[in-house]
């Protein structure tokens, strides 16, 4: 074993250097690396998607003596073509942390006690049944994740929605992708991007909207840099609220005041129309204009309800709406010089330039998240730059299967694997495939994530099962939700791989198989489904989340709906799930095809992947005989929305005079529960910090590393200052990464959300600072 360990560390050393080289020298290749690994006794290389972001890089995992010892990029995966970032190269080390949870634990007289997993599963089933009996069907809930495999999410939905009759199924993707979904649905009538990563190899201009791709989607960013190096006519514009590594690498960096992206997007549309850069053929044939409700609130109160209402408007009404958004007017609220707004508009408006817009959390974690998604679509639709190679709006996803498991399987309260619970036909389809009475499926959605945790606090929910996520670090306004989870008569089950602040509040902890210790499937940002085998044996009694749910379902009497054997359940589940998506608009590849390839894009029709949707050259679902077919909407058109600028839920004032912005760093995945157990990543970024503008730091009298107290209306925290680090916020803003559970920054954030998507805004709330 000593030899293995050293070999492993040498491999990690080489991986680190190669990853560093990849970020510093775009397009660099180390094709002869295998000569080194060939000498090291690795016996097999197995394919899998990386689990540490939504890019979905294909990796090859080197296995020796039943242990994963190495990772390299899979050259046959079109996503990354053999590259990985530092998290990918070190990903297998996350399997082997010393405190891995390998046995089940149950709270007895206040203490967590190890028990056989079968006893823990008996208790979970008994408690679930008892709670339901005593408090009603909607008193039990499942909270999952965009890191759930597709089968995990599918069986969770089938058990809770189909068998137990409650729509209390949510996933943490509500916190990261819900606005992207409602943005797509309101504009196109169908979810998920029309384009694919090949857009990067075709675009001339990349505009990143509040999106630090250099750290969050590093392999895609390096592909952009490589394209810029190879082609003379490529530029990157970073449009953001703080300077990051993306800004440093960009050709131009433009800063805007938080929340005013709404105004700037409208100003770009104003300029496009004012200069007659509109692609009238496209607009006349393929676009219709609408408005919705305004002054729509922020959802900070319990039981907040909102339903938007679309009304058609004319092009002239849309033009009148835009008159409030001249570049000069917008400069005043956004801080973006009018000339920069005009410059952005000219790039979108130039018919010879292919533009791809990228975004992720900056636009989605936004109290007007749906609106800002709509507004960026408006820009692309006005100039007809969409659904063609290199031109398109591209909403990136954060988690490896936020698309696959949450958006496609529909693990949100209102959704089903196809359609929504409110639609009778969709309920009938689900009931038929699930073999349950249609009456089982409740036509009313229950709680979205924030409201689900509020319901847990109030006592409307008494039993919650949490899998593959860490809400006791990630929920906004965390103090309230932790206290709710800790209440005496709440029963919390947590399936996880390491101890976290969420396992701290658990009554039962179930040891979970991690990533390649189970067979599964993910779905990435570009509609790519990626299968992986069980490459390693899970440690101790660890079990896949899918199988845990099946075990509980059977204990509850649903053997008929969960009949599969442990030898082949993933293939069987996939083929059942695939029935929901039959047809040219969403056909998924068969299991046998997925097993062989490094990912397959849907719609997968007649053996062919669809690269660009809504364009008949690439998309067999187009049937209107025109150059584009936006078949998601009943009028066969994409919708341009008049959506105004409205301020954030909480803005700096005399008492709390700074914006607080939160986010991630390249070294760590989400709450760091896995990556902080990888020595290289942990050493590179051992703890969190508060990033300040140098002038704000000087005003406060703090230097690098000194402690700063950050205070919001909901909580306070002390952490070390970082000044002129890798990121520099604008004056009047601080930025805090959330990966470090010793600094629970979400005790300060606000649980305001977009009233349409119900996704919270982690990028904007008000705080004040003191030198600690």
């Amino acid at each position, binding site marked *: *074993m*000593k030899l293995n*360990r*050293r070999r492993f*560390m*040498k491999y*990690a*050393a*080489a991986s*680190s*250097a*190669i*990853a*560093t*080289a990849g970020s*510093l*020298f775009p*397009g*660099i*290749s*180390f*094709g*002869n*690396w295998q000569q*080194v690994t060939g000498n090291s006794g690795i016996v097999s290389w197995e394919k899998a998607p990386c689990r540490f972001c939504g890019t979905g890089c294909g990796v090859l995992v080197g296995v020796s003596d039943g242990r994963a010892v190495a990772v390299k990029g899979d050259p046959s995966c079109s996503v990354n073509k053999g590259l990985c970032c530092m998290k990918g190269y070190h990903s297998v080390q996350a399997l*082997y*942390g*010393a405190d891995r949870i390998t046995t089940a634990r149950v709270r007895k007289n206040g203490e967590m006690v190890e028990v056989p997993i079968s006893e823990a599963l008996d208790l979970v089933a008994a408690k679930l049944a008892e709670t339901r009996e005593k408090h009603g069907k909607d008193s039990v809930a499942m909270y999952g994740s965009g890191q759930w495999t597709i089968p995990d999410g599918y069986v969770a939905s089938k058990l809770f929605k189909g068998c137990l009759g409650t729509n209390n199924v949510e996933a943490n993707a509500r916190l990261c992708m819900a606005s992207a979904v409602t943005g797509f649905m309101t504009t196109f009538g169908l979810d998920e991007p029309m384009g694919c990563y090949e857009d990067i190899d075709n675009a001339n201009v990349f505009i990143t909207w509040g999106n630090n791709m250099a750290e969050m989607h590093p392999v895609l960013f390096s592909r952009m840099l490589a394209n810029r190096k190879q082609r003379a006519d490529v530029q990157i514009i970073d449009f953001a609220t703080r300077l990051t590594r993306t800004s440093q690498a960009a050709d131009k960096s433009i800063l805007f005041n938080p929340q005013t992206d709404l105004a700037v997007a409208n100003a770009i549309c104003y300029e496009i129309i004012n200069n007659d850069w509109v692609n009238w053929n496209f607009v006349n044939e393929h676009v219709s204009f609408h408005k919705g409700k305004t002054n729509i609130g922020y959802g900070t109160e319990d039981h907040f309800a909102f339903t938007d209402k679309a009304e058609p408007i004319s092009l002239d009404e849309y033009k009148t709406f835009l008159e409030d958004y001249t570049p000069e007017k917008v400069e005043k609220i956004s801080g973006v010089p009018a000339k920069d707004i005009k410059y952005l508009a000219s790039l979108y408006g130039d018919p010879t330039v292919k533009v791809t817009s990228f975004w992720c959390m900056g636009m989605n974690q936004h109290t007007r998240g749906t609106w800002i998604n709509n507004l960026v679509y408006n820009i692309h639709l006005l100039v007809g730059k969409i659904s063609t190679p290199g031109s398109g709006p591209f909403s990136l996803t954060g988690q490896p299967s936020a698309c696959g498991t949450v958006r496609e399987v529909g693990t949100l309260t209102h959704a089903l694997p196809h359609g929504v619970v409110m639609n009778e036909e969709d309920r009938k389809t689900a009931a038929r495939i699930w073999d349950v009475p249609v009456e089982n499926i409740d036509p009313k959605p229950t709680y979205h994530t924030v409201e689900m945790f509020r319901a847990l606090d109030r006592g409307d929910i008494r039993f919650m099962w949490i899998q593959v996520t860490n809400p006791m670090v990630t929920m906004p306004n965390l103090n309230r939700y932790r206290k709710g989870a800790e209440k005496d008569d709440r029963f919390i089950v947590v399936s996880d791989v390491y101890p976290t602040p969420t396992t701290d509040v658990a009554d039962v902890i179930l040891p979970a198989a991690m990533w390649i210790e189970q067979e599964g499937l993910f779905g990435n940002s570009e509609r790519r489904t990626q299968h992986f085998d069980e490459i390693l044996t899970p440690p101790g009694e660890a079990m896949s989340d899918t199988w845990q749910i099946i075990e509980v379902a059977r204990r509850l009497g649903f053997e008929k709906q969960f009949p599969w054997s442990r030898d082949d359940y993933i293939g069987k589940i996939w083929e059942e799930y695939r029935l929901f998506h039959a047809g040219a608009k969403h056909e998924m590849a068969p299991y046998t095809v997925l097993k062989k390839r490094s990912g397959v894009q849907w719609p997968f029709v007649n053996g062919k992947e669809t690269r660009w949707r809504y364009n008949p050259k690439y998309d067999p679902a187009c049937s209107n005989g025109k150059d584009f077919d936006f078949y998601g909407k009943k009028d066969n058109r994409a919708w341009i929305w008049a959506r105004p600028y409205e301020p954030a839920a909480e803005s700096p004032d005399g008492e709390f005079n700074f914006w607080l912005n939160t986010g991630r760093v390249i070294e760590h995945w989400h709450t760091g529960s896995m990556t902080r157990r990888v*020595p*290289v990543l942990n050493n590179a970024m051992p703890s969190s910090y508060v990033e300040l503008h140098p002038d704000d730091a000087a005003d406060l009298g703090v230097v690098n590393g000194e402690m700063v107290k950050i205070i919001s209306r909901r909580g306070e925290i002390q952490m070390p200052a970082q000044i002129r680090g890798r990121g520099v916020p604008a004056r009047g803003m601080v930025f805090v990464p959330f990966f470090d559970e010793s600094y629970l920054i979400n005790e300060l954030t606000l649980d305001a959300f977009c009233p349409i998507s119900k996704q919270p805004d982690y990028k904007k709330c008000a705080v004040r600072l003191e030198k600690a």
Partner: protein
Amino acid sequence: MPIFSYLAIPKNGAKKALCTELDALDHCEIIPAENQDVVVLVTETPDETAEEELQDSLKNLQSLQSLSLAFGCDTSEQQEK
């Protein structure tokens, strides 16, 4: 047992010479980039003394322009998990 990895950047046009020089040193493995003037160097020395000697040798390489550390660990300090 310290293990380190570095990005070694050769002086102009000296990538081949740098590879030869590094190859000749004890405790060194190299992975030259195929398409750029960058060499990944992985070192594994048995103890602190050997490590210091190697550092001295690296400093004296004629063809080396710069060396940046990418990774470091000491396997003797780590328990087998």
